[in-house]
């Protein structure tokens, strides 16, 4: 029963979707929708819309439970020196109370991974790590677009990009706290 209903809604949906952009294919709209609905019938995967019925694949109540505190390792305290170093490396200001809380919560969330037993399992870098790496031939195919690239920069001097003078080192921790206090944040 629900399947028939879903099937019909899909037909309606597909007609709606295909109606507007396919003005030129007005003759073929009916055939396309027919094919679409046939395919959807075969594939058995019915994609729900928010305005329509609840998909039976999604449970109605959450089935997972947060990991109990005892199983997690000690909550990490982040010393001020580490905050300073992280700010220096990432060039991100997060030494406000909110920022530090956010960081601590994120670490706590990631601590749940410690419960999983990963002995004997190779760590994964990405889901695509089994794909073949394409090797390119050593022939020149690009380059010679200096004008185009220089147009993108705000400042240029005689075909060179202009950057501020070197790495301006971040001021010391105490000085930076003073700067931040006076800043708008």
């Amino acid at each position, binding site marked *: 029963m629900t399947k028939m209903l879903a099937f019909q809604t899909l037909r309606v949906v597909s007609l709606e979707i295909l109606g507007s952009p396919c003005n030129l294919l007005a003759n073929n709209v009916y055939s396309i929708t027919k094919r679409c609905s046939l395919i959807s019938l075969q594939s058995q995967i019915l994609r729900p819309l928010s305005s329509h019925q609840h998909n039976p694949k999604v449970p109605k109540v959450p089935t997972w439970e947060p990991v109990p505190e005892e199983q997690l390792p000690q909550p990490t305290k982040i010393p001020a020196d580490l905050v300073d170093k992280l700010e220096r490396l990432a060039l991100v200001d997060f030494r406000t109370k909110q920022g530090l809380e956010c960081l601590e919560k994120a670490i706590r969330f990631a601590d749940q991974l410690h419960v999983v037993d990963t002995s004997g399992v190779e760590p994964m870098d990405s889901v695509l790590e089994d794909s073949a790496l394409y*090797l390119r031939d050593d022939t020149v195919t690009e380059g010679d677009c200096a004008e185009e690239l220089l147009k993108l920069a705000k400042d240029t001097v005689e075909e060179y990009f202009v950057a501020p003078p*070197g790495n301006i080192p971040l001021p010391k921790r105490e000085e930076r706290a003073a700067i931040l206090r006076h800043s708008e944040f």
Partner: protein
Amino acid sequence: MKKRCNVHYFPSAPDISVIHFSLVCVWYLSALQQLVGVVGLEIHAQISSNTKLFSGSSVQFLAPPNSLVSFFDASLPGTLPVLNKRCVEAAVMTGLALNCTINKKSVFDRKHYFYADLPAGYQITQQRRPVAVDGVLTYSFLGGRKRNQVMRKNVYIKQIQLEQDSGKSLHDDVNSQTLIDLNRAGVGLMELVMEPDMSCGEEAAAAVRELQLILQALGTCQGNMSEGQLRVDANVSVHRPGEPLGTRTEVKNINSLRYLARAIDFEIQRQTEVVQRGGAVLNETRSEVVHLPSNPERPSPSTSCRFMPEPNLPPLQVFEDEASLPAGVEAGQVVLLCTLRAGLPELPSVRRDRLVQTYGLLPEHSFTLVNEDGLMEYFEAVMKGTSRDPRKVIGWVTNELLGLLKQQDLSVSHSPVPPAALAELLELQEAGHISSSAAKQVFQEMWRSPGKAAPQIIQERDLGLVSDDADLHRICQKVVESHPDEVSVRSGNQKVLNKLMGLVQKETKGRADPVLVRKILQEKTS
């Protein structure tokens, strides 16, 4: 290092002298535990290829600024890296030549740091699992008291990894800005990380020279230090043998072998003095370029960088041979170890051994031949033109020719005397037309006036060997008669004979055949 040993001898107080003597002994022993230098090298070799590591833009040394930059090199959003097969082959060949273990699967990482000539904010490198690990570089240098003994040493190579080069930045202090040229950004580099097995500048320079020769023989890198194709950073520290390693400093911006040796020795000396004074060596970077507050140095491993696996590149796989390829993979698309191994050219160490085998040369001679660019080819060309014993020819090549070249700071290819001319001269000497001292004079003349052939000079200067018996007898007689006191001292005395021979040679302007003269003089003085 000077030892300050003040020994005061008190003859009148025996017990005091014993105490003092033992104190001096202790001091002496601690002074014997001298500070030794520990040198580790990090070498970046620019891969000799047509295009860059991850993009199809050209690689050239001098070109208009930003003309060899693709959208990927400029880090425009939406661009992706595509690995260059030639760079992988170059890294694997270098690994094979240095006896490394090639990792069949290696991965790429991102190394994040902020600098104006790194437009992406990260450099794609191979930190965790590089393409080759655990190799050894065997190098030799001429040591010993007379610097004619070939000493061989090993330095272990921790890893060889592929990584991207950064762009070039020109600091314009007048206008307080930096000008960036991205032509070099993205060029493939091989980073060779060596274990700290060396102890002085000379060893480091010899190791780098050997690596230069190997890379040039393989064709993977042109090894020109002054053009920045081979960049060496030295990590120097001092310690007493047996104790843990001291704090290290990094010496950068080295653009010649000679400066490398000097800079390392200077740094070892400086650190030794600091430690002996009781001070502490700071972990810092020393370089020739003075860094003003406005343009500080780029980050080094001491200022840590964040690493992350490169998400846009799957692992790089290298296969042994076609049989081990998985299904669906074409042989033309991958790097095969067996093909590369078979294609390795003659390495410098093999070449040296071959010279010793073929020509019966001493190791130090073959070392010199291979060490100087083009000298081996010169020597082999001379050998083709003469039938003289190679061991005699080598003396000419390494002493006469090389001496003059070094004096006038010329390379072998600019030698005014071509190999054929030298071969002609040596043939004349072999055939007995001129003596060896006359030959040396002729060579000097040939050097000064290039184009003049040996026979012509011999005729002009009348340096032909005098082997006419009667003439020689006459001259010898004259010499013997004019020095009766020497002759009467002791007949057959070697020193006297040599002196008389010298006089005869002076008479004949070095043209007399020494063998004949000696015989005649021996007859006359016995």
